[in-house]
C-alpha cells in the first residue's frame, strides 16, 4: 500500500510540463542549448525512437546499420543541428521529426558513399530502452510489406502515443496499488461500442457490477486525458490535438485497405 500519492503525480506532471517540444524548438531555433531543453529532447528521443528506427529500417538497411543510423540521428538531433534545419516550416513534432530524419538520411547517404561510417556507435543501449518500455504492437507481415516507409513511421508513432498513455495510466493505478486491476480492465479502454460484458468482468476482478462500472468510467476518463496530454506534447496548440488524433486514425484505417 502506498500512502504518499500526491507527491509522485505532481512530480510527473512537472516533468511533462517541461518536455514540451516547443521548448525544444525554441532553444534549437536560437541555438541556446540549455540543459533543460537538452533533457527535454533526450526524453522525446527515448519516447519516439521506435518510429525513427522503423522508418530507417524500412528503407532497406540491415538491422545493425539501421540501429547505428538511428543512434547517429539522435546524436545529431541532440546537438541541435538537425532541428535548426527543419524549423522554418514549424508544424507538428511528428512531421518535423520525419522531415529532419529524411534530411538526415539524404545527408548521410552522400557521406556514406564517400566514407564508411564507424559502425557500432551506441550512445544508448537498445536493450535498456526496450526493457524499460517494451512495445506490444503487432501487425500482420503481409500488411507491413505493402506499406511505405512513411506509413510505417506514422503507424509506429500512433502506437507509441497510445502505449505511452497506457503506461502512464498503469503507473497511476500502480501508485495506489491497483496495477493488476488495471491489467484486468485495460481491454475496456478502447472506444466504447457497448460490447463490454460487465457481469463477466465483474466476476473476474471480484467487484460488484455497479462499482466496476464506476471504476471503468473513471479509467476511461483518465485515459482520455492522458492520451490527449501525450498528443498535446507533440503539437503547438490545444486545438490541434483532435486534428492530430484524426490524422493518425486515418493512417491506421487506411493501412487496412
Amino acid at each position, binding site marked *: 500500500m502506498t500512502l504518499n500519492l500526491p507527491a509522485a503525480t505532481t512530480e510527473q506532471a512537472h516533468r511533462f510540463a517541461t518536455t514540451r517540444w516547443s521548448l525544444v524548438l525554441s532553444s534549437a531555433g536560437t541555438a541556446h542549448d540549455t540543459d533543460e531543453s537538452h533533457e527535454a529532447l533526450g526524453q522525446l528521443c527515448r519516447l519516439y525512437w521506435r518510429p525513427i528506427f522503423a522508418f530507417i529500417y524500412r528503407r532497406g538497411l540491415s538491422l545493425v546499420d539501421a540501429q547505428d543510423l538511428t543512434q547517429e540521428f539522435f546524436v545529431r538531433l541532440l546537438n541541435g543541428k538537425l532541428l535548426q534545419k527543419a524549423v522554418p516550416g514549424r508544424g507538428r513534432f511528428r512531421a518535423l521529426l520525419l522531415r529532419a530524419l529524411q534530411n538526415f538520411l539524404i545527408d548521410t547517404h552522400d557521406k556514406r558513399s564517400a566514407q564508411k561510417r564507424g559502425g557500432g556507435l551506441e550512445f544508448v543501449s537498445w536493450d535498456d530502452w526496450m526493457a524499460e518500455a517494451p512495445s506490444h504492437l503487432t*501487425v500482420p507481415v503481409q500488411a507491413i510489406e505493402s506499406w511505405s516507409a512513411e506509413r510505417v513511421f506514422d503507424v509506429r508513432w500512433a502506437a507509441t502515443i497510445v502505449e505511452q498513455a*497506457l503506461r502512464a495510466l498503469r503507473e497511476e493505478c500502480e501508485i495506489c496499488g491497483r496495477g493488476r*486491476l488495471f491489467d484486468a480492465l485495460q481491454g475496456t479502454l478502447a472506444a466504447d461500442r457497448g460490447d463490454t460484458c460487465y457481469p463477466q468482468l465483474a466476476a473476474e476482478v471480484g*467487484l460488484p457490477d455497479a*462499482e466496476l462500472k464506476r471504476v471503468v468510467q473513471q479509467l476511461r476518463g483518465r*485515459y482520455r486525458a492522458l*492520451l490527449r496530454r501525450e498528443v498535446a506534447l507533440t503539437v503547438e496548440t490545444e486545438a490541434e490535438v483532435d486534428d492530430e488524433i484524426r490524422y493518425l486514425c486515418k493512417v491506421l484505417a487506411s493501412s487496412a485497405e
Partner: protein
Amino acid sequence: MKWDGISDSPAPSLQRTAACEACGSEARLEGGSCVSCLLLAALDDAEETPGPENLQWVLAGCEVREQQWKLGNYQILEEIGRGGMGVIYRARQRYSKRVVALKRVLSYHGDSRETLERFRREAEAAASLDHPNILPIYEVGEADGMPFFTMKYAAGGSLSRAAAVLRADPRECVRLMAKVARAVAYAHREGLLHRDLKPGNILLDSRGEPLVIDFGLAKWMDADADVTRSLAIFGTPAFIAPEQAHGSRSAVGPAADIYSLGAVLFDLLAGRPPFLGDHAIAVIRDAAEKGAPKLRSIDPNIDRDLETICGKCLEREPDARYGSAAELAEDLERWLDGRPIRARRTPLVMRSARWVRRNRVHTATFILCILIGGAAVTRQMQGKRMQGELTARAAAQHSVQVLPFLDVDNAQPCTDWTTRLAQEFRQHLQTFGPATVHLLGEGPHREAGTGADGAGGPYRTLLSGTIRRVDGQIRISLHLLRGSDRAPLLHEVVMADAKGAAAAVSRHVGRNVYSILSTADLTTVTPPTSDPGLLAPDARSFIQQGLELASRRGGLDLDRSIACLEHAIALQPGSSAAHAALARALGYKIAYRTTQEPLERALEAARQAVALDPRSGDAHLDHAAVLYHAGRVSEAIEANKVALEHSPSARRSIRLISNIYDAIGRPDLATAWFTLPIGGQPIFAGPSAHIGDCHAYMLQDDRAEAAYQHYFKLHPEQPEGWMGLCRLHLLNGRTHEARLVAQQHSSSYRDFTYAVQMEAQVEFFGRDFAKAEELYARLYERDPSGGRNFYGGVAFASALGRIRSGSDPAAGKKLLEEARESELRGLRNAAERPLPFYHLAAIESSLGNTEAALHHLAAATNAGWIDYRSMAIDPRFDAIRDEPAFQHSSSTMRRRAEELKLNWSRIESARAQTN
C-alpha cells in the same frame, strides 16, 4: 535477420490478418486491443476529463486490496509468460533499478528445503556459464517458499515467435543454429546439459542474436522426474530425443541435446517439427519407432546438405549422431562458407543392417550376462576377496542414515532415542543380509548421494521421523526417504510402549525397509500420488495457478486464486490437494484482508482436505492454519503436530507453530520451534526479525538487537529489521533514537503499511500527537479495521480515537466506540488469544471506563499477554495507569516474561548438551 522494423520482435507475432471489426485497422497491441480504437476513445471528448485524484479516489475505494507486488528484491512489473510449471515476469531490481526477466518455478515440492537447495546449486551452476549466446542468470533466490531466478531481459522474443519469418531465409536459420550449437558445445564442456532445447528456449536480442535460456533448469519446471507423464500433461515432446522421453535421466547425455538442436533446425527450415501427432505419447512413440522424415520430403527446395545435417542429428541411436555439439556447429559453419560438410547420411540399407546387428548384440549381451553372472556367483564362492567386495556393495546398497527424530511434544531432537533406534535397526536389518546403518555424524561424512537414485552418495536412504506421547504410549511416525532427493519411499506410524519402543519400531518396519533397499531402482518405489486433483492435468493446472496467485497475497489475486481452486474442486471433487489449497487461500484472505467472512468456507475446505487424504501433511497443515485463524489455538497446535508427523521437515509447519506460540505469549516455545535443528541443522538460516521479537518479549534485548541487525543485513528490502531496532529504542525510553531510525528508513519503505505504522507508533508513544494523528489518519482511511496485529496491539482506530479524544472528544469517542463494536464482534473467534482482550482494555481505558478496562486487561494477562513494556508507554492506558490493578497486571506480565526467559535458557542448554 529479417525484422519488420515495427515490432520489438524480429518477427511480428500475428501471421493471420485479424482486422478490427469496428474500424478495419490491423495494428493491434498484444492483448488484442486495436490501436486505432484506442486513439478514437480520446477523441470522444464529450465528457469531462478528470484529474488523477478522482481516479485514485475511486480506485482506493474499491474493495480489491492489492499490494505492490514484490518477490525478494524485485518489483514485478508485468507477467510476460506462463507455462505449466513456471511464470515469467518483467521485473525491476529494487536497488540497481535494472529491468530483468524473473522466472518463478511453481513446484509442489518447493516446500522442501532439500529441493530448494538442489535447485539453487543447479541454478548457480547455470549462472556460472559465460558465453555471448547464453542468456546470463543474475540471481537465484527464493520467495514464499518458491524458488526463482532472474536473467537478462531479452526484448526480441523467442525463436518460436520469429520462426515464420525465418523460414523464408534458410541461411539465417543456419547462422542462428550454428551459434546456438557453439553455445551448447561450450556448456557441454562445462559439464552442463540443457535437456530442453526448443524454439521457445532460444531468445533473440535486440540485434537478432540468439540467446539460449534455462540451461539445465528445464526439469525444475516440473518436479516430477517422470518426463513422459509430465510431457503428456504439459507440453510437446517434439524436440526431445527418444532416449530422453523414455529412459531414466542417466541415459541422457550430450547426444540428446544434439538431437534437440537438429529438431529445432528441422522445425525452422520445414515449418514443422520432425514428428507430429495428436498427443504427446504418439509423438514419443513415433520418434522411437520410426526414423525422422527427410527434410526434403516436406520441402524439396531445401538444400540437400541441410537435410543430411538434420538427419544426422535426428538419428534414433545417440551414437549415430554428431559426436559433439561442436562438430554440428562446424558442419553448419562449413555449409555457410560453402565448404563441403563432414556428415554423410547413412544409407538406408546400412541403417537397417545396423539396427538388426545392434539388436542381435543386445540379445547376445543378455545371454552373456546370465552366463557371466552365473560364473561370478561360482567364483564368488571360491574367492574371499571377491566375496568381501560383493558384501561391501550390498551393504552400500542397503544403507540407511538415521537423522535425529523429533520430539514434537517438547520441540526437541531426541538424540538418545534416535541412537537406540539406530542400534536396534542395524541389528534387525542385518538379520536379512548386509546392511549399513549410521547415525548422522557417524560413518562416512559426505553429502547424500547425487545420482539418480542415490547411488552416488554414501547413503541410499535416510530415516527420519517424529515421536510424541499419546494415551500413555509413544506414537512414532517414521519416514524412509531416498538419499538423493529425499523423495518419500515409506511412511509408517507405530504405537508402542515407552520401554522398548525402538525395538518395536525396528521389528515392525525392518523387513519392509530391507525389501525396499533390495530394489535396484529406487525411483520405482516412490509412491505415485493418488490425489485425483494432481493426476488430472486440467485440475492440476488450476491448483498450481491458484497456489501461485495465493502466494502473492494481494486482494485481487486472492479472489482469483479462490476462483481457480474452486474450479479445480468442481473438476475433481475428490482432491484433497485442491481442498487444502482452497483452505490456504481463504486463510490468507482472513489474515491479510482482516475479514472473518470466509472462515466457515475455509474450515469446511480444510476438513474436507483432511477427510479425503488423512495422510497428507499439507491437508493437516492447512487445517491447522485455518483453526488458528478461527481462534482455536490448541486445536491448531495439535493439527500442526499431526502435519509434522506426515512431513517432518515442512518449513511451513515450523513457521506456523512458531507464530502461534508467539501470538499466545509463549516466545520461549516460538523460539524453540523456529530454531529447531531438523536433520542435524536448523531449518531456517540465521536469526530473523521474528526471533528478534521473541527475544525482546523475553527481555533479552541484546540478542534481539543482534537478530534484527542480522536480518536487516540479509534482507534490506524488508522493513522488519530496522523496525525491530526502532522498537527496541522505544521500549527502552530512547524516543529520540527511535525517531531517527524511523525517519531514516520509513521513506524508502513507503509501500509497506508496517513501515508507516512504525513511524506513527514512534510519534504516538513519543507523544507528538499532531504527527501521530496525521499518520494514523492516513492509515485509518486505507483500512479502518487494520493495525491491531502490530507491535503493542495499536490498531489505527483506537490510536486515532485516543489522540482525538484530546482535541475533539465527540469524534474520538465515536471512533473508539466503533473500534469496540468491531472487536466485540470478532471476539467469539478469539477466545484463546490475548490480543482482542488487550485491545479492548486499551479502548475502554481511552474511553475512560476504568472498570471495563481493568477487567479486559486481567483477561488479556490470563490469556498470555506479556508485552508490559509497550503498555507502560502506550498513551491509551494513561487513564488507568495509576490503578493498583493495572500495576498488578503489569508486574504479573513482567514475572511471566522472566520465567519464559528462564525456560528458554533451559531449552537452549539442553540442546547444547545433546550436541
